[in-house]
């Protein structure tokens, strides 16, 4: 966990409103899939948390969607410029080597952290199914990249313009994916729907953050069993075992 100036290697539009950035990272050696980096941008007082999508030697890749002023500013940065990166933060997905197969389920910009995760499970020779949900075909990304890793990719689009029409769960049913150990990341409604079906695996959560490292209590989630217990999404999370925290 360190705060360093990193250099942008590339920063390009991947699909509409969504960018991919490659940057140097001093702390690559410590990183695990599902952890995040916290980016300080000029003009903004709070850092922006973004998941690590891929770790490659001394570089990482992130994929982010422009949803507000901070991500817009990020998208306007150019190769060669420096950014202040605090990383790696949080607890990622544990790699469970005893598993034979894993089902990764991602929605939109919840997909990026699953890429490094798929990579690591594939390195262990595991069977990896990936279900990616998007609003439409135009928004789809990383199908080829996952396939290249040797993962099996299934696409769901809300308008049916690509893959299975409907949600990621519709795709799971349509393609009859029966793996019960899942790792998921995506919007809250998606996670809630998955929680109704799965109980083995991990969810990655989001929250508005301030410190990003566990000091300020901005980002808590309630424990499902102990009413008066909270977990910090930035520190104990963002990845939690299914059933650990209340999805709210």
């Amino acid at each position, binding site marked *: 966990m360190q*705060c360093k100036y990193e250099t942008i290697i590339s920063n390009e539009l991947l699909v509409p409103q969504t960018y991919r950035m490659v940057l140097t990272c001093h702390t690559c050696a410590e990183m695990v899939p599902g952890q995040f980096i916290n980016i300080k941008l000029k003009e903004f007082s709070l850092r922006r948390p973004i998941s690590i999508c891929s770790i490659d030697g001394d570089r990482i890749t992130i994929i982010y969607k422009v949803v507000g002023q901070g991500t817009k500013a990020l998208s306007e940065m150019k190769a060669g410029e420096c950014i202040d990166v*605090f990383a790696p933060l949080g607890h990622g997905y544990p790699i469970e080597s005893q598993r034979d197969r894993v089902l990764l389920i991602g929605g939109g910009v919840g997909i990026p952290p699953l890429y490094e995760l798929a990579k690591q499970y594939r390195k262990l020779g595991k069977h990896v199914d990936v279900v990616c949900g998007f609003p439409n075909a135009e928004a789809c990304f990383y199908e080829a990249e996952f396939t290249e890793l040797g993962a099996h990719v299934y696409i769901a689009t809300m308008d049916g313009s690509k893959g299975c029409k409907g949600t990621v769960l519709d795709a799971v049913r349509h393609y009859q994916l029966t793996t019960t150990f899942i790792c998921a990341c995506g919007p809250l409604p998606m996670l809630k729907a998955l929680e109704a079906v799965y109980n083995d695996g991990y969810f990655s959560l989001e929250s508005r953050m301030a410190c990003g490292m*566990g000091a*300020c209590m901005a980002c808590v989630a309630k424990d499902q069993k102990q009413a008066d217990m909270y977990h910090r999404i930035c*520190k104990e999370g963002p990845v939690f075992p299914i059933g650990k925290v209340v999805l709210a």
Partner: protein
Amino acid sequence: MKQVDLHIDLPGLKLKNPIIPASGCFGFGREYAQLYDLSILGGIAIKSATIAPRFGNECPRVAETPSGMLNAIGLQNPGVDKIIEKELPWLAQFDTEIIANVAGSNEEDYVKVIEKLNNQPTVKAFELNISCPNVKHGGIGLGTDKELAAHVTKLCKQAAKKPVWVKLTPNVTNIVEIAKAVEEAGADGLVMINTMLGMRFDLKSGKPLLANITGGLSGPAIKPVALRMVYQCAQAVNIPIIGVGGITDAEDVLEFLYAGASAVEVGMANFTDPYCCVKIIEALPKVLSQYGYQSIKEAIGRSFKNE
């Protein structure tokens, strides 16, 4: 460069330098201890302690604002017993002054927390948070009324075996009146300011962004207000002031010293740059000597003192 003396003695606090992370912005130091040696710090104002554990408000609890942020954490803390059991022994390893920030829903709660902490040698002073805008009972109510503020101060002073600092809220018409009332009630020092009550709205839903509706504004945005209040109170009271509000660098510290503060707390800046306290401590001797000071004492209150 001549050696610059950063040291300052205040009630309960022998500070090797005037930099103290502010309550609620540094937890109990555990996270920042992974980044640097906490013994570098003048002191640490730990997260508000309440008599029972508090779980705070619903999320979202924070929102960004221009040069600042809103928070409505709601004083989440494990309760004073757990703090005594788990946090203070761990903090004892560091060579820095621990200030226990005390909060409560009513006056008795403050006294109870103080009684529990009285015999903790790690705690060097109390800081009464009578100014948190994010709790329903007490909190802001006590801090906005001079009689209530004086009364809780008096009760705490009676109970306390260590110096009592009172942390004031800026959300008042007349801060000087409250500072004076608190001084008269026996406060050993003032900490000012806590956050300013503010709001943001979600553009999509049209509803308040924070689950708690309102939150406390902190960060550089509030610095001019904090400086003004320190300046006004420093001339009206005879007890020392710890300045807080929007400090991000050594130049900001110098402004607070000029205004009349004897030390400062750094809050939100710890989020923007987790190393900021270290950087300020490193820069301070350079900045002080650049402007001709050999000690922080020389700069304190310079704006209203005649050379």
